[in-house]
C-alpha cells in the first residue's frame, strides 16, 4: 500500500468520530457524576460536527479509498446523516431516563458513539472484511450497553442472549463469506460481483454460501426465523437502550444488506429474491400476529419491528433501483416512527417506574392530551393510515413488488398490515377511551418535549409533502448503485 496516495478525505467524519470519542473517553474520567451534563453536551456536539463534516466531504458520486475497502457515496452520506440525527434524538430522549436509573455515565455516551462509528463503517464498507469489522464494532458496543445496569437480572440476561445468538449469527455470516471467497477468490464487493457475473464461479458453492449469508443478515435485521432475540432484548434492556438498538442500527443493517446482496451478490438476485420472500412473508405474519398477544408495549414494539423488517424486505425483493429506494424510504420512515413511539415511553417513565405495559398508557389523554396526540400520530403512522408518513412508506414497498408482478405478495402484505392495525389501534383505544390507572404528573425536559413534538409532527407534515424525502432516497440510490 502506498501511503502517499491514501485519500483520507472521504473517511474524515469517521476519523473525527473515532478520535473525538477517544478524547471524550479520557475527558470523562475527570468529570464528576454531578457534572455529567458536560459529557452529554460534548456528545451532542460531536454528532453535530460529524454531520457538518459529512456534508462538507459529500460528493454526488462514489469515491473508494483504503484500497477499495471503504466507499463514500450519496447513499452512505444520506444514511449517515440520518444516523447522526437519530443518535442525537436518542441521546436527548434518554437523558432524564438514564439519570433516573444511574446509567447516565460516560460509558453510555462513549459506547453509543462507538456503536455509531461501527454503523458508519457498515454503511461505508465495500469489502467483506470492513463490513464485518463494522458489524462487530456495533454489536460489541450494543451488548455492553444492554448490560449497563449490571445489577438488573433481565438486562444481563438479555445481553447474554443477544451476545450468544449474535456470535452464532456472526459465525453463519463468516462461514458464508468464506464460501463465497472460495468460489470467487475475492473479498471485495465489486470483484465478487464481477466474478459471479462472468459465470466462472462454482454455483453450488455460491448458493451454499448465500444461504448462510442471508441467515446472518436476517439475524441483524431481526427477521423471522432469526428474530427470537428481538423481543427478549427489547423487553429486557432499559427502554433507552432498546430505542438505541431499534433506531439507527436498522438503517445501518439495511445498507449492510444492500451492500452484501445487491453490490456483492447482485448476479445471484434470482436466488436471494426467493429466500428474502420467504423471510419477509414469515416476518410479516409472525411479527403482526404475535404482537396482538402482547401486553408489554416494548415487546409489542419488538414484534412490530419484526413485521416492519418484513415490509422493508419487500423493497429488496423487487430487485431493482425503485424497490431499493422504496426500502430505504421505508427504513427512514420506520426509524422516525419508532423514535416517537419509544420517546413517549421514555417521557412517561420516571424514577422507579418504567412505562412498559398497555395499562400504563391507559387514559393518557386525560393526563396529557399533547403526548396522547403524539402517540396517536406514531401509532397511526405505523399502522399505515393516510395521510401519515407510514402510509406512503408501506405504499411504496408494496407498489415495488406489484411492479415486478408479485401481486400475491402485495395482497399478503396488505392483509398483514390490516392485522397489524389491530394492535396499533388498541394502543390508541387505551390512550383515549380508558380511564387512567396511573395518575402521576408527567414531567419532561423542555428540549426533549420540543424535539419529540417536532419528530411526531414531522410524521404528519412529511405525510402531506412526501415527495422531497422520496426524491432524496431515489436520488441517493440512483447515484450510488451504478454497478447495477
Amino acid at each position: 500500500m502506498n501511503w502517499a496516495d491514501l485519500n483520507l478525505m472521504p473517511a474524515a467524519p469517521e476519523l473525527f468520530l473515532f478520535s473525538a470519542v477517544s478524547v471524550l473517553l479520557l475527558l470523562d474520567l475527570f468529570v464528576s457524576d454531578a457534572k455529567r451534563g458536560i459529557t452529554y453536551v460534548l456528545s451532542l456536539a460531536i454528532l453535530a460536527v460529524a454531520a457538518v463534516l459529512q456534508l462538507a466531504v459529500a460528493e454526488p458520486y462514489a469515491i473508494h479509498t483504503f484500497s477499495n475497502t471503504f466507499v463514500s457515496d450519496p447513499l452512505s452520506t444520506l444514511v449517515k446523516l440520518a444516523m447522526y440525527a437519530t443518535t442525537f434524538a436518542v441521546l436527548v430522549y434518554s437523558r432524564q431516563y438514564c439519570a433516573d436509573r444511574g446509567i447516565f455515565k460516560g460509558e453510555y455516551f462513549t459506547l453509543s458513539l462507538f456503536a455509531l462509528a461501527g454503523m458508519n463503517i457498515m454503511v461505508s464498507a465495500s469489502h467483506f472484511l470492513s463490513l464485518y469489522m463494522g458489524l462487530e464494532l456495533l454489536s460489541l458496543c450494543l451488548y455492553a450497553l444492554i448490560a449497563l445496569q449490571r445489577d438488573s437480572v433481565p438486562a444481563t440476561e438479555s445481553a447474554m442472549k443477544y451476545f450468544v445468538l449474535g456470535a452464532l449469527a456472526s459465525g453463519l455470516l463468516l462461514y458464508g463469506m468464506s464460501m463465497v471467497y472460495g468460489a470467487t477468490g475475492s473479498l471485495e464487493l465489486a470483484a465478487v460481483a464481477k466474478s459471479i457475473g462472468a459465470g466462472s464461479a462454482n454455483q453450488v458453492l455460491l448458493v451454499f454460501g448465500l444461504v448462510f449469508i442471508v441467515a446472518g443478515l436476517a439475524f441483524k435485521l431481526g427477521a423471522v426465523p432469526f428474530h427470537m432475540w428481538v423481543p427478549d432484548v427489547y423487553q429486557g434492556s432499559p427502554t433507552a437502550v432498546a430505542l438505541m438498538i431499534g433506531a439507527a442500527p436498522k438503517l445501518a443493517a439495511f445498507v449492510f444488506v444492500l451492500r452484501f446482496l445487491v453490490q456483492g451478490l447482485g448476479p445471484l438476485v434470482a436466488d436471494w429474491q426467493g429466500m428474502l420472500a420467504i423471510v419477509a412473508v414469515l416476518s410479516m405474519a409472525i411479527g403482526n400476529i404475535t404482537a396482538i398477544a402482547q401486553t408489554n408495549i416494548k415487546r409489542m414494539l419488538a414484534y412490530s419491528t419484526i413485521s416492519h423488517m418484513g415490509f422493508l424486505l419487500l423493497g429488496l425483493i423487487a430487485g431493482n433501483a425503485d424497490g431499493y429506494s422504496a426500502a430505504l424510504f421505508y427504513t427512514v420512515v420506520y426509524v422516525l416512527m419508532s423514535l416517537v413511539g419509544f420517546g413517549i415511553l421514555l417521557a412517561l417513565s420516571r424514577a422507579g417506574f418504567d412505562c412498559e405495559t398497555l395499562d400504563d398508557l391507559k387514559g393518557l389523554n386525560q393526563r396529557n392530551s399533547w403526548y396522547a396526540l403524539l402517540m396517536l400520530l406514531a401509532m397511526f403512522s405505523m399502522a399505515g393510515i393516510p395521510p401519515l408518513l407510514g402510509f406512503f412508506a408501506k405504499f411504496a414497498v408494496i407498489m415495488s413488488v406489484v411492479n415486478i408482478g408479485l401481486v400475491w405478495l402485495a395482497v399478503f402484505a396488505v392483509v398483514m398490515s390490516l392485522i397489524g392495525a389491530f394492535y396499533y389501534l388498541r394502543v390508541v383505544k387505551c390512550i383515549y377511551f380508558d380511564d387512567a390507572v396511573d395518575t402521576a404528573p408527567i414531567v419532561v425536559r423542555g428540549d426533549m418535549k420540543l424535539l419529540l413534538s417536532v419528530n411526531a409532527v414531522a410524521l404528519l407534515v412529511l405525510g402531506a409533502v412526501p415527495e422531497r424525502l422520496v426524491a432524496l432516497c431515489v436520488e441517493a440510490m440512483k447515484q450510488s448503485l451504478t454497478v447495477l
Partner: protein
Amino acid sequence: MDMKSLYLLIALSPLAGSLIAGLFGWAIGRRAAHVVTILGVAVSAALSLKVLHGFLTGEASVFNEAVYTWLTVGGMEFSVGFLVDTLTAMMMVVVSFVSLMVHIYTIGYMQEDPGYQRFFSYISLFTFSMLMLVMSNNFIQLFFGWEAVGLVSYLLIGFWFKRPTAIFANLKAFLVNRVGDFGFLLGIGLVLAHFGGSLNYSDVFAAAPGLANATIAIFPGVEWSLMTVTCILLFVGAMGKSAQFPLHVWLPDSMEGPTPISALIHAATMVTAGLFMVSRMSPLFELSDTALNFIMVVGSITALFMGFLGIIQNDIKRVVAYSTLSQLGYMTVALGASAYSIAMFHVMTHAFFKALLFLAAGSVIIGMHHDQDMRNMGGLRKYMPITWITSLLGSLALIGTPFFSGFYSKDSIIEAVHASNLAASGFAYFAVVAGVFVTAFYSFRMYFLVFHGKERWMENHGSHHEHHGDHDDEEPSGDHHHGLGPNDKPHESPWVVTLPLVVLAIPSVMIGYFAIEPLLYGDFFKGVIVVNSEAHPAMAELAHEFHGAAAMGVHALQTMVFWLAVAGVALAWFFYMKAPHIPAAIKQRFAVIDRVLENKYYMDDLYFNLFAKGSRALGTFFWKVGDMLLIDGLVVNGSAKLVGFFSGVVRKLQTGFIYSYATTMIVGVLALMTLWFAQLIF
C-alpha cells in the same frame, strides 16, 4: 402578489380563521373567535371582489394551474389546483360575500349560545370548503370539496346535538346525500375510465367531443350512450346536494340547524354546488339531449310541487325552505334548457335575496323570543321596521317583481324554457309558469301573516310548540322561555343582525338590472360555459329578443307571468288579511289534498317505510345470518381465534431459553438450504 398566492390566500384565510377559532376558541374567548373568523372571510371577500373586478375590466385572465401535487399513482396525479375564470370568480364573490354577512349576523344570533366559538369555526370551515369546491380544476378536488361542505352541513344541522330532532335531521341529510354521492362517484369513475385517464377538467373537456357517440355496455348486450350515462350519474350527485326531487327530503329538515347556516349553507351556497357543477360540466352535458331532458323534468317537478308545500307550512323557516327548494328547481330547469348562464345568474340573485329572507326570518325569530310559528305572529311591522322593509324587498325580489333582481333571472328562465326545443320543455314551461303564481301566494302569505294583521301572540298562547325553537341545548325541555307572553312586545334586533339585512337588500333589489346584460348576453361566460347553439338554440333566441334591462322590465308588465304573480299576491292578501275564514274552509273542503300536502306527498313515509325500514330489515337479516353467523362467527371471531391461536403457539415457541432460539436459527438455515438445493437438483 402573483395570482397563485392571491388565490391561495382567498381559499386559506377562512381555514386559518376556522382553525384558530376551533382549536384555540377555549383560550381566546368569544370576541377573539368572531374577530378572527370574520377577518379571514373578509380578506377572502375583498380579494374575490378584486378578482371579479379584474375579469370585468378585462385585466384578469383565466388561471388554470396545479398548486400542489399530493401524490402520483401509476401516472394518475392527485393534485390541488385552481381553475379561476369568470364562473369561478362570480361564485367566489357570492360565497365569500354572503358568508361574511352571515358571520356578522351570527354575532347577534348566537349571542347566548355556549357553542359560540365552535359555530364560528364551522362556518369558516364551510367557507373554505366551498371555495375549494368552486375553485377546483379537477374532479378529485371537486369531490373533496363536495364532501367537505357536506360534512360541515352535517355538523351544523346537528349543531344542537342534544336535541333528538336535530340528530334525526342531520342523519337524514347525511344518508340522502350518500345516495347522491354514490351516483356522483360512479360518474367520476366513468370519466376516469373513458375520458383519457385524466381527471383534470381541461383534459376531460378536450376528450369529450370525440366521445359524443361512444357507447358502453353496462349490462351485456345493452349499449348505452357513454355521455348520457356519465351526465345522468353526475347529475344524480347534483340532485342530492342541490336537493332535487326525489332527493329533496333532507332540506326542509335541515332547518333544525341555527338560522344563519340555513341562510348560508341551505339557501345561498352549498345547495347551489350541484348547479355550479353542471354548469362547469356544460361541455359534457351539451352532448346528451337525454340527460338534459332528464334534468329538465326533475327540475320542473321540484319547482312546482315543492312550491305547493310552501303554502301550508306554519313554521316561518320551513316556508322559506320550501321556497328554496322550488327556486332550486327553477335553476335546474334552466340547466336543462341549456341556459347555464341564466341558471348561474339565478344562483347569484337567489343567493342574495334568499339569504336576506332567511336572515330576516331569523331576526323575526329573535324578536319573537324563538317562537317560529307564524300563527303567533302578526303586526310585527310596527316593532321591527328594518326587518319588515328588508323582508318586503326580499319577497318582491323572490316573486319576480319587474326591475327587482329576481325578476331578471326568473323571467329569463321562463323565456329560455319557452324557447327550448327539448321534448320535456312543454311540461317544464307549464311548471315554471304555474310556479310563479304559487311562489307569489306563499311568499305573501308569509309576509302578511308575519308583518300585518292582528298581533296574535297576545292570544291563544300555550300549547302550540310543535316546532322547537333554536335555543335550548342547555335545558331538558327547553320550552318555557319560548315565545312572547301576552304582555311582551317584540323589538327590533341589534345592529349586527340588521346590518347584514340592509347590506343584502341592496343587491337583492339592484343586481339583476345591472348584471343581466353582461352576464347573459355579453361575453362574460364566453369560453367558460359551452352551449351548442345549433342543437339548443334557446340562449341565442333570447339574445335576439333582448333589448336592454329597462325594456325587459317594462315589457314584463304586459305578460301573463307578471299578472300571475300579482294574482298570487292579491289572493294571499284576500285570504289572510280580508277573509281569514276562507283558507280554513278550503282546508276542510279539500281535506284529501291537504292531507297529501301535510304529509309532503308521503315521500318521507315512503323512504322511511320502504328504504329505511326495508334496509333495516335487510340489515337485520344480514346481521343475524351474515354478520353474527358467518362474519362474526366464522370470519371475524374465527380469524381472531385463529390469529389468537397462532399467537399463542408462537408465544410458546418463544420459550426464553437460548438453546431453543439457537435451534430455531439452525433449523431456519437448514430449511433454506434444503429448499435451494432441492431446486438445484431437480
